[in-house]
């Protein structure tokens, strides 16, 4: 193993020859930084989206008229409730409100004061805010991002929405929703159901959709069929489907990035290989000298191996560390836009630190193996030949 003499020598070989290693280290750090950043962003987004979806209801019931989503009559509720195995059906009034002339859009969610379920969820979000007081006037809760957007346009304590009937409805900004890293609720505005109806143009007796839960997994397919046959214009979306849709889009991206990884790694190995074969004669001479001075092949391979280990670990830790800082502390400027698109409020999402150890270790292996091979194989080839070189 390494005693103090060998450690000293190892340090000399790695840092004394920093000019030879510098380019390699910089290149390695860069490659690992890019790979880890991409990995960090994608695992963070994936985690956020899947947990958000997991918290959603099992099924959503919509209405399709002429191929388009249409408002759902409240009267459907009793038909739905009648199906056995269905739990907690709640009607929702919500819709996307597009600002004029163009640009951002908000997700308006109407809340029914009488709906105890919704109230519970809401008081969880709002916390100390007095619900009754909130719901009795034209008040709304906005996300931090929406609030800052409004503030920029000088809507500091209220905002006037142009309703479906063409009249302006002025809503007071009652409070800001707690800062949430949830990707899906970044552009949310919560308001009393009647105001939401007016703005979105949802008639009395109609809602946007129903959500419901099916506690027994085994019944899900059956219930979905049952629901679908209730009305000719009913449309049922299960959580499984939306998860699959998200997964698909992620798999697509992952496939894309996997290709990127491969190209990056192939280039990297090639550059490394070239670097180390270009220095072949220098290496050959140095190894010849060591052997002439009483080093065995094993001594030389051991030194070179530790040298590489130090370089690999050093660059890996640096690259991953920089990526962590870049993604989770600096919130990944530029790269985030590539992933999330620069539309609406999504780029302002806070990326929650999620560390995918298996992916990190595969990056390590994909990086370390070609590195070790491209360095140790030429060294070994030199070391086993007779060391007469030093004499010439």
């Amino acid at each position, binding site marked *: 193993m390494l*005693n103090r*003499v060998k450690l000293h*020598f190892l340090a000399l070989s790695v840092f*004394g020859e920093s000019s030879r290693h510098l380019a390699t280290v910089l290149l390695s750090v860069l490659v690992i930084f890019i790979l880890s950043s991409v990995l960090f962003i994608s695992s963070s987004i994936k985690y956020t989206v899947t947990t958000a979806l997991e918290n959603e209801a099992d099924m959503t019931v919509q209405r399709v008229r002429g191929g388009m989503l249409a408002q759902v009559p409240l009267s459907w509720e009793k038909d739905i409730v009648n199906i056995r195995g269905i739990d907690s059906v709640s009607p929702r009034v919500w819709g996307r409100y597009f600002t004029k002339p163009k640009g951002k859009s908000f997700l308006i969610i109407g809340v029914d004061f009488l709906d105890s379920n919704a109230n519970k969820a809401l008081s969880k979000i709002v916390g100390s805010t007095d619900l009754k007081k909130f719901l009795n006037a034209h008040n709304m809760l906005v996300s931090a991002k929406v609030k800052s957007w409004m503030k920029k346009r000088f809507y500091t304590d209220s905002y006037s929405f142009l309703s479906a009937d063409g009249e302006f409805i002025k809503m007071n900004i009652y409070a800001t929703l707690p800062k949430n890293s949830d990707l899906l609720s970044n552009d949310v505005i919560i308001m009393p159901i009647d105001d939401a109806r007016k703005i979105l143009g949802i008639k009395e007796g109609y809602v946007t959709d129903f959500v419901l839960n099916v506690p027994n997994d085994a019944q899900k397919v059956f219930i979905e069929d049952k629901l679908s046959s209730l009305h000719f214009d009913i449309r049922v979306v299960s959580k499984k489907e939306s998860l699959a849709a998200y997964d698909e889009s992620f798999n697509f991206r992952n496939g894309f990035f996997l290709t990127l990884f491969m190209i990056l790694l192939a280039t990297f190995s090639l550059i490394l290989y070239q670097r180390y074969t270009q220095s072949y004669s220098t290496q050959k001479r*140095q190894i010849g*000298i060591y052997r*002439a001075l*009483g080093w*065995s092949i094993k001594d030389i391979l051991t030194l070179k191996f530790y040298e590489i280990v130090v370089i690999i670990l050093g660059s890996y830790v640096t690259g991953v560390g920089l990526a962590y800082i870049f993604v989770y502390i600096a919130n990944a400027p530029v790269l985030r836009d590539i992933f999330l698109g620069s539309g609406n409020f999504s780029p302002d999402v806070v990326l929650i630190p999620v560390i995918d150890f298996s992916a990190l270790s595969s990056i390590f292996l994909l990086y370390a193996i070609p590195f070790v091979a491209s360095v140790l194989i030429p060294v070994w080839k030199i070391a086993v030949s007779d060391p007469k070189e030093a*004499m010439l």
Partner: protein
Amino acid sequence: MSPIVEIEGLKRFYNTPAERVEVLKGINLSIERGETLILKGVSGSGKTTLLSIIAGLDRPSEGKVLVEGEAIAKLPDNHLSHFRGRHIGMVFQHYNLIEHFSVKDNVSVPLVPMNLRYQKVGQRVEDAMKKANISHKSDMLAARLSGGEKQRCTIARAIVTNPEIVICDEPTANLDRENAIKFLDILKNLHNMGKTIIIATHDSIFESLNFSHTVVYMSDGEIEKSESIE
């Protein structure tokens, strides 16, 4: 006492694509412990090849080579390296220093595989640098040394393991006259320490060597004659 180096019927061929080159054509040589031997001969006469074989850096094609009674050509790598590290010190024509290491780190290279304590290594390096008269440059990078200083650094490195045999290949080829004379002084010290010294050279300066030594004349892979000088 038996000779420290015994060579009988040593041949060395190289197979080039065109032909088989016979570089050493049957060398018989015996070197006594404490002897200083000067191998003379024109360039290409096979001196370096002979030294490489004695040092175990190259292998004979035919014949017997015993160093310290050991048939070194037959040793496996780890034993041969071990043997070389302990018994043979090398001084190369082109110094072969590691340019980005300091003098003292260069001198310590042969000690690294030996699993010695750090302090012990420091001591031995100090000692060798003193004997080779290079202590005053111990922290200077090898790249910054003058030719004579590089030479002395190489000598310190060659003797740091306290070997019985010191092998020098064209040691004065890259030195000016003044430094070459200094080198002869160091050789005398080594001789007085009882080292066996083998030098390949075609430099006439060795004619002014003022202690007893043997001169062996080589020509075209053969030993022509040898004479003892008192």
